[in-house]
């Protein structure tokens, strides 16, 4: 796929170590699935490495749900291969899938807790399915409820819990049988922003503490931004872009990614954008994207020293994603001196920044 920021991304990828096939918890090869005339999956190939959090993002109807359901055999691909811990599962029968599914936990957008069972019985259900004795089940349930911070609700019924608490129970239940992989199907989409943050923090915690591999699908970039290590963007049944989250955020290559990022990345203020014109004007507006080492140095003060003449910061800022600075700055350069503008652009490019001339604005910005 795309080589994001090859020059600066090298360090990040090296610390992660060489991808080793035996470390892949999930490997999908050219997965295809049609529903009538529409292709829900149109040749998806993807790997999920042991211990990582992979976020799959796409608009609704992009094929996310079909994709995640192929991983535990709830959905069967028309063609292609699904390897879970090295074993091909797409053609297994329901009976052979059952033990495999116990290796894979799943959490859902609408929690899917059993209303007739207490919280602890919900959490213990996967163990009951495995045929474990009652004492062991309840001990494990207590341990997990402690992990998700709901010990005092063990005997309560799900109906008495808040949405965030229900999802915590869902997470505890998904972890009960000590899975090798956790699938998250829009787990925070029904929650308010604050609860979403706490659930995502819990997932990140579990990923770190237990080394659990997590694959999550979402339509919210914020979810990917806050916990994923890598992101894959799916559109019309195809993976259009994938890579480490910070590099995809810094340099989105596809229109879908750009449009999904619009909600959380700095944009030129609408009022200013509406006044942009292609011809000459009093001020030129530049968009400058920087990431990684390029964003760590004193870029703007160096620019001021290297290129005499004025420029102004109009909008933007530096975000930190996976400890990597990712920034978008909107600069305004006054006057119609083409060589001055050219010097600025050249300087920025030597610092690995991507520069785009957005247009000109007449009058004062």
């Amino acid at each position, binding site marked *: 796929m795309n080589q994001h920021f090859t020059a600066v991304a090298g360090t990040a990828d090296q610390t992660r170590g060489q991808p080793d096939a035996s470390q892949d918890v999930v490997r999908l090869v050219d997965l295809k699935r049609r529903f009538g005339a529409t292709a829900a999956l149109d040749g998806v190939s993807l790997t999920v490495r042991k211990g990582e959090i992979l976020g799959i993002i796409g608009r609704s109807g992009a094929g996310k749900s079909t994709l995640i359901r192929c991983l*535990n055999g*709830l959905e069967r691909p028309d063609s292609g291969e699904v390897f879970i811990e090295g074993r091909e599962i797409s053609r297994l029968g*329901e*009976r052979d*899938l*059952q*033990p*495999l*599914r*116990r290796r*894979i936990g*799943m959490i*859902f957008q*609408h929690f*899917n807790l*059993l*209303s*007739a*069972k207490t919280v602890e019985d919900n959490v213990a*259900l*996967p163990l*009951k*399915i*495995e045929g474990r004795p009652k004492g062991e089940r309840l001990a494990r349930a207590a341990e997990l409820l402690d992990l998700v911070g709901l010990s005092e609700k063990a005997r309560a*019924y*799900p*109906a*008495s819990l808040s949405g965030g608490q229900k999802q915590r129970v869902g997470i505890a*239940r998904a972890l009960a*049988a000590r899975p090798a992989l956790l*699938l998250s199907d829009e787990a925070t989409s029904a929650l308010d922003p604050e609860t979403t943050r706490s659930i995502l923090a819990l997932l990140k915690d579990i990923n770190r503490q237990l080394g659990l591999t997590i694959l999550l699908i979402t339509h919210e970039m914020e979810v990917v931004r806050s916990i994923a290590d890598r992101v894959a963007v799916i559109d019309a049944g195809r993976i259009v872009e994938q890579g480490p989250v910070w590099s995809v955020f810094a340099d989105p290559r596809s229109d879908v990614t750009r449009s999904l990022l619009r909600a959380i990345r700095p944009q030129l203020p609408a009022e200013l954008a509406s006044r942009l014109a292609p011809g000459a004007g009093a001020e030129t507006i530049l968009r400058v994207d920087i990431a990684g080492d390029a964003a760590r140095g004193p870029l703007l003060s160096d620019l001021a020293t290297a290129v005499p003449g004025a420029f102004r910061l109009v909008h933007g800022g530096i975000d930190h994603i996976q400890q990597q600075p990712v920034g978008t700055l909107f600069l305004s350069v006054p006057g119609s001196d083409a060589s001055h503008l050219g010097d600025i652009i050249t300087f920025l490019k030597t610092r690995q920044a991507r520069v785009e001339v957005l247009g000109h604005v007449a009058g004062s910005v």
Partner: protein
Amino acid sequence: MSPVLFELLLRSIWETILMTAASGLISLVFGLPLGLALVATDRGGIAESRWVNSALGAVINGFRSVPFIILLVALVPVTRLIVGTSIGTWAAIVPLSIAATPYYARIAEVSLREVDHGLIEAARAMGGNRWTIIREVLVPEALPGIVAGFTVTLVTLIGASAMAGAIGAGGLGDLAIRYGYQRFETSVMIAVVIVLIVLVCGIQWVGDRLVARLDRRG
């Protein structure tokens, strides 16, 4: 009311309770699995089979479309085969059960169908088999509806058992027709109606309390 009539009333109450309870129990034992089979074999069910589903549906509809009084007479040979006679309280339990079973199967089907499909998917994702889904998800989640439906079936059976008087089944309906209506014993008629009201209210009250206890959906 004479002591003889009073004794007759007590016996009729017992016969009605016996007919309702026995055929109710039988309809529960056979109707619930039938309802489960209807839901399981339906499109998108856990044991999808269009052929089985249509066949089951046709048989159930067939029995349900025959008026009970006709069924009562038509089933006489079957009753004779099972009970040895076609007359009396025990004989009436056969057609009552056969009428109530498909009725209850449909009621149970509705409750089972209302179980959120996401819960079934969650149980499948945990590695549960069909039996797990039935035992841990479908039945417990539908239980309030299953119990409420059973209450409705029992009340309906009390009414139907009155018709069984036509084959000498005894019971309150039979008593009301023979003494209250044909012999102008108004006191018997009034007593029967009061007992029936108490019976129906009692069953409904117990059923409602049970449903309230079972329903954890908040």
